[in-house]
């Protein structure tokens, strides 16, 4: 079982709740994913659409809420959002996200580290979203981050695990769980992340924009499990030379 801070998780698939076509689809998708932790964002209420309340379909008793600080451009904005999330009753868990550039949505490492230090002091359980930077991952771990969340590819791109080399170094070095977040576009990407030893993955866009999000969530759940099993089983070594799977002896009878 996966343990992050003081919580254990049976499922190693975490689900983002953005970009779903309807609340009903979202609800069914969460169920199909088997996820026990779901991310949410904080935004101003649209006073002209007061009934559009996601809390009508999400069960706080059933799922751990991981509010994000999406939209924050620096540490100060992220900390403000974090405190609002806590006041909104989501507890101390936080996906820290500081993305100054809306074009790439790549995280600012310096502001992320600053905010992590401050929020850890303030009692938050901080899961920072980072570029796949092994040095930064260690710095955040030392600052008290409960896990690190390196990106597979930029948010919403579905490009897959293009940071594989760096993520492998992060996994090799980390003492805290490593959750590959963002960019995973297909179940095979999630399986790969798990095969190389990621502790969990967080997926949103690949599921929410799929033709059938409910079915895709189930596909990701199976891929994550398959990848984890493969990691635990231990993958065979790669080789540039062929090695026969069938015996190479006992062939005398066909040789003339």
């Amino acid at each position, binding site marked *: 079982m996966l343990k992050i801070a003081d919580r254990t998780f049976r499922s190693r698939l975490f689900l*983002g709740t*953005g970009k*779903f076509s309807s609340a009903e689809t*979202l609800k069914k998708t969460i169920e199909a994913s088997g996820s026990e932790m779901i991310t949410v*964002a*904080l935004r101003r209420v649209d006073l002209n659409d*007061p009934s559009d309340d*996601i809390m009508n379909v999400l069960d706080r008793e059933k799922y751990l809420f991981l*509010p994000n600080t999406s939209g924050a451009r620096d540490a100060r904005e992220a900390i403000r959002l974090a405190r609002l999330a806590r006041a909104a009753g989501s507890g101390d868990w936080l996906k820290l996200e500081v993305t100054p550039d809306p074009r790439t949505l790549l995280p600012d490492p310096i502001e992320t580290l600053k905010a992590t230090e401050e929020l850890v002091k303030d009692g938050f359980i901080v899961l920072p979203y980072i570029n796949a930077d092994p040095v930064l991952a260690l710095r955040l771990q030392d600052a008290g981050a409960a896990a690190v969340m390196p990106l597979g590819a930029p948010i919403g791109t579905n490009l897959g695990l293009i940071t594989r080399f760096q993520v492998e170094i992060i996994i090799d070095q980390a003492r805290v769980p490593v959750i590959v977040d963002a960019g995973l576009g297909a179940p095979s990407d999630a399986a790969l992340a798990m095969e190389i030893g990621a502790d969990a993955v967080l997926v949103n866009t690949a599921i929410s924009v799929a033709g059938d999000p409910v079915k895709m969530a189930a596909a990701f759940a199976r891929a994550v499990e398959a990848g984890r099993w493969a990691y635990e089983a231990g993958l065979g070594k790669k080789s540039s030379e062929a090695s026969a799977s069938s015996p190479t002896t006992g062939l005398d009878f066909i040789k003339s």
Partner: protein
Amino acid sequence: MKITCNGETKEITPNTTLISFIRDMNLNPDTVVAECDGRIVKREEYDNMFLSEENVLELIRFVGGG
């Protein structure tokens, strides 16, 4: 009297509490977090906090996000 809520000017009667304002907006006070003049208002304060002229109020809640 007038306050600003989520960037919009709202006319309210004197002695309006935060909780009654939130309900007047057809919102559920248990799923909305309020910031008044930059200060986060705790849920337990909603019932007894009176809004004042020119208060700048932000009502925020969880939405879908990744």
